[in-house]
């Protein structure tokens, strides 16, 4: 890991609903809810701040409803944040993510970010072949040579250990683990410096999970890709993440080095979470 900052997030908040002046003071871990009792709005994430460096894997851990996926979706432009700032540093330039126009956002999404969803349906186009899915992302980045696209797709599928003989098959014919591999290959197609992984191993067989995690580590090693890994699985966090953020009811309740979070958790909630997993 180097000291190059890739992403800086400050005070990111996302509220679903009309919101009111008391939303933030009435929700969070100390209130045991993320639903505002005054207006019924959902404070999905509030005051989220963190830095991500080149080659680093940051884990965001929490139970469902903790706001971990919401945070990532806002950064990938799947959602529009209620407030906050995020700066993406790339190639000597910096981008104020939430003030970009639609085309600039799309450019970053297509060229510089990669996203792997828990549900392959969100990340893959099931109407086109595995190779076509990768081609789509390459075509977005204005590669217009068929043979080159083909070669690059084969290379990516080989790297993610998808049988290249099957590249022209539809994703629905693939197993869950294979679909995830195709999704990862697609996300990597443009060599993005920033990759979001949202519960990518959830629901897969243990052996398949291990292989996917192995692949992710290899990618990090070889490409120095910065990654944000969202998961509720402590095992995933332990293997992948150097640093970890623990979230509950839309707030960060603890952040630290992963081994420290697991062996010396400070917050009562984290202590319970870690104790229940061991």
């Amino acid at each position, binding site marked *: *890991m180097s*000291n190059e900052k890739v992403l800086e997030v400050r005070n990111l908040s996302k509220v679903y609903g009309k919101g009111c002046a008391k939303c933030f003071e009435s929700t969070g871990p100390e209130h045991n809810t993320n639903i505002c009792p005054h207006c019924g709005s959902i404070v999905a994430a509030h005051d989220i701040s963190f*830095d991500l*460096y080149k080659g*680093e894997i940051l884990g965001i851990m929490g139970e469902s409803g903790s706001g971990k996926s919401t945070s990532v979706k806002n950064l990938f432009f799947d959602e529009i944040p209620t407030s906050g700032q995020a700066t993406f540093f790339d190639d000597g330039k910096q981008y104020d993510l939430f003030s970009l126009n639609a085309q600039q956002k799309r450019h970053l999404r297509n060229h510089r970010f990669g996203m792997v969803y828990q549900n392959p349906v969100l990340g893959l186009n099931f109407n086109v072949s595995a190779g076509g899915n990768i081609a789509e992302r390459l075509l977005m980045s204005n590669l217009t040579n068929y043979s080159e696209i083909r070669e690059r797709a084969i290379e990516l599928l080989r790297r993610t250990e998808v049988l290249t003989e099957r590249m022209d098959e539809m994703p629905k014919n693939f197993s869950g683990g294979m679909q995830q591999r195709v999704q990862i290959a697609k996300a990597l197609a443009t060599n993005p410096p920033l990759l979001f992984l949202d519960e990518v191993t959830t629901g897969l067989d243990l*052996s398949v999970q*291990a*292989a996917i*995690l*192995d692949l992710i*580590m290899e990618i990090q*090693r070889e490409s120095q890709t910065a990654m944000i890994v969202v998961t509720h699985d402590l095992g995933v966090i*332990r*293997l992948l993440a*150097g*640093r970890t953020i623990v979230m509950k009811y839309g707030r960060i309740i603890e*952040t*630290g*080095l992963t*081994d*420290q979070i697991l*062996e*010396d958790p*400070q*917050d*009562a909630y984290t*202590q*319970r979470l870690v*104790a229940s997993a061991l």
Partner: protein
Amino acid sequence: MSIQPILEVEDFSKTFMLHEQGKELPSSHSVFLKAYPGRLTALIGPTGAGKSTVLKGIYRTYLPTSGRMMFTTEQGQQIDLATADEHQILELRKEEIGFVTQFLHTLPRQSTEDVVAMPLIKKGISREIALEKAREILGQLNLPERLWAVSPATFSGGEKQRVNLARGLLAQPRLLLLDEPTASLDPKTTDRVVELINNLKQTGTAMIAIFHDMDLVEKLADDVVELAPPIGTENFFNSDTNENA
């Protein structure tokens, strides 16, 4: 002494706050120690004295409750490990501070030689050279060659420990923390470890170690720091287990 310490621990204390039980558990109290380049500092003391806690505190696996741990980087920068930024710690772990524990967490698919070579590869050394060096040290530690290409996940305690040692020693960090590195090794391999640790000293690595065996302390330690259990925990039954949790 003319050489400057690479690490200076001053008044380090660690108390665990167990929220669930509403209990405070002191583990290390007011520890002072120094580590010098090319020298080994041994931590001694009875069970529950918080020896492992100190090592984990230096490595920041545990967050110190109080105290300063001034580390001098290769560039001559002074960093307090107790309060340093997490990114800084990760960088130091990659480049300068190593830790050999009794435990090994690896992926089932990674081969032993890959596990051992990994710190070198992460430092940017070519895979080929890193693997070559990994095999060399695995040989020196008497790990049978047939195991090199296999994942260490299924290894015995002694085999795992050898993999762990090989990885930690090969990386040649500026500061190496060793927590009972020979606990489950046979005497012949232990001798090899002594030899390797002495070699590492020659290269200037500073070491802080816990040995289960006083013989090893005598053979290897240049400085000895004796720790006493924090007041009120002398009879705390589970303290040792907690340290290694």
